[in-house]
């Protein structure tokens, strides 16, 4: 048998934990990340809402940045510390929210994210899908700012 390095790692119990094609795609090619330091600084300054959840101590941490125009999310950036499923789930969430109204974006659940990724290992869902909470915090921040 030759070993090819298409990530097909087995879990410790032998189950094929890793990760759907969609997870791999977003993990190895994360979407809507900052293109440059300048862009990051610009979002830090001008984003309409920034939300952060988790901590490195618990293994996962996420920060979401949104820009809103006429009640719709027009731009989204994010930063994530965590494993493949954490990175992939934030990446796919960033794709899901762009173009959505604030109200629709609020309704996104962890289940929606997992579904879009075509599934995640069960034990990973609880700890690594936190993006929706970061997004809600970003929306909260936006709405607070608006008032």
């Amino acid at each position: 048998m030759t070993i090819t390095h298409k990530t097909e790692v087995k879990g410790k119990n032998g189950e094929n934990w890793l990760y759907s094609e969609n997870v791999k795609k977003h993990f190895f090619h994360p979407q809507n990340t900052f293109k440059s330091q300048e862009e990051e600084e610009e979002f830090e300054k001008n984003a309409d809402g920034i939300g952060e959840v988790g901590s490195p101590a618990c293994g996962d941490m996420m920060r979401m940045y949104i820009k809103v125009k006429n009640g719709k999310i027009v731009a989204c950036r994010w930063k994530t510390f965590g494993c493949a499923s954490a990175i992939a789930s934030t990446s796919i969430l960033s794709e899901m929210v762009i173009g959505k109204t604030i109200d629709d974006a609020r309704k996104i659940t962890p289940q929606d994210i997992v579904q879009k990724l075509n599934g995640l290992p069960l034990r990973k869902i609880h700890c690594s899908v936190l993006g929706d909470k970061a997004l809600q915090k970003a929306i909260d921040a936006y709405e607070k700012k608006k008032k």
Partner: protein
Amino acid sequence: METRNVYVDHAATTYVDKRVIQSMIPYFDKVYGNPHSLHSFGRVAQKAVNDARESVASILHCTPKEIIFTSGGTESINLAIKGVALSKGSGHIITSKIEHPAVLETCKYLEKQGFTVTYIDVDKYGIVNPNDIKKAISKETILISIMYANNEIGTIQPVWEIGTIARKYNILFHTDACQATGALSLDVSHLYVDLMTLNGSKMYGPKGVGILYRKKGVQLQPLIHGGGQEFNLRSGTENVPGIVGFAKALEYAQKEKQQENKRLVALRDNFIKKVILTIPKSVLNGHPTERLPNNVNISFLDVEGESVLLYLNEKGVAVSTGSACSSQSLEISHVLDAIGLTHDAAHGSIRFTLGKETTKNDLEYVLSVLTPIITSLRRISPVKVKKSEIRKT
């Protein structure tokens, strides 16, 4: 640079040395008798087991009767610890916080059965202070079990000093030498151990075979009952090819260790130096010199180990991590926790364990793919840990 396969996870397991494979082959279909049989098929097999036992004994400087073949490190550890505990009936056990789960889980099990256990702290390098052991000894202490070298951070323990204490207080001393089997001296007359666990699959030997050295006179209760093989301590038909392969692997590893260790230490230290110089905010875990020749364990701050592992895997590089995310329990490595690393730093730990075929070019390749991986993961990480904040206060 072209993708190449670099396996630097030899502490997980090694491939089997071709010379070892050759030595095993006759014992599958030519010499296949049961060593317990009286006919000549059995006698030949028995001789092979005897020869293997003698060969192992000569390396350990003990008698063949002090060598018990088992199914591997975990079984040997269970036999040593539970075997002593069951034979004594009750009492107190001393071990350390950084032992392999085979030791820790066995001790936890015995706690449930009414034994008491002290788990000794280690210093920031992962070294057990023999004085702490001395202090933990009580009238009830029946066994001390301290590993020879740690599987995650490679720290080598002062085994003979602990052995000296154990002997002075007349307490049995077991060492788990699974990671040390191929690299360190196994001379029991200098180590002052009463029980020692060795494992084949981390020294280019076959999986599924290990030994427990049991000093003459040490009372053990067997865990596996049956036909009375292995001096009544481990029943079951002997794994003849495995035993032959184990002895051969040990023979080669011990004979070649001096030269190989020298080569590995040079590779290891050069790799550590280069990684730390090239990648900012990278910190060596474990002791700079009192470590296994093939062990490198480095925390890359602000990134998470499983992500690094998978990116490296995509580039053909096999490593392991102490990050919680890669473990079944979702808890960080108990070893990194015991040496005082914060969770942040432990999450970013990567273990590279070199092997006989690892070359300088391999490690240069690893570094060349590692550097951009860490950079790109840091670019998307919201965490900014300071190098001065990696230890718990």
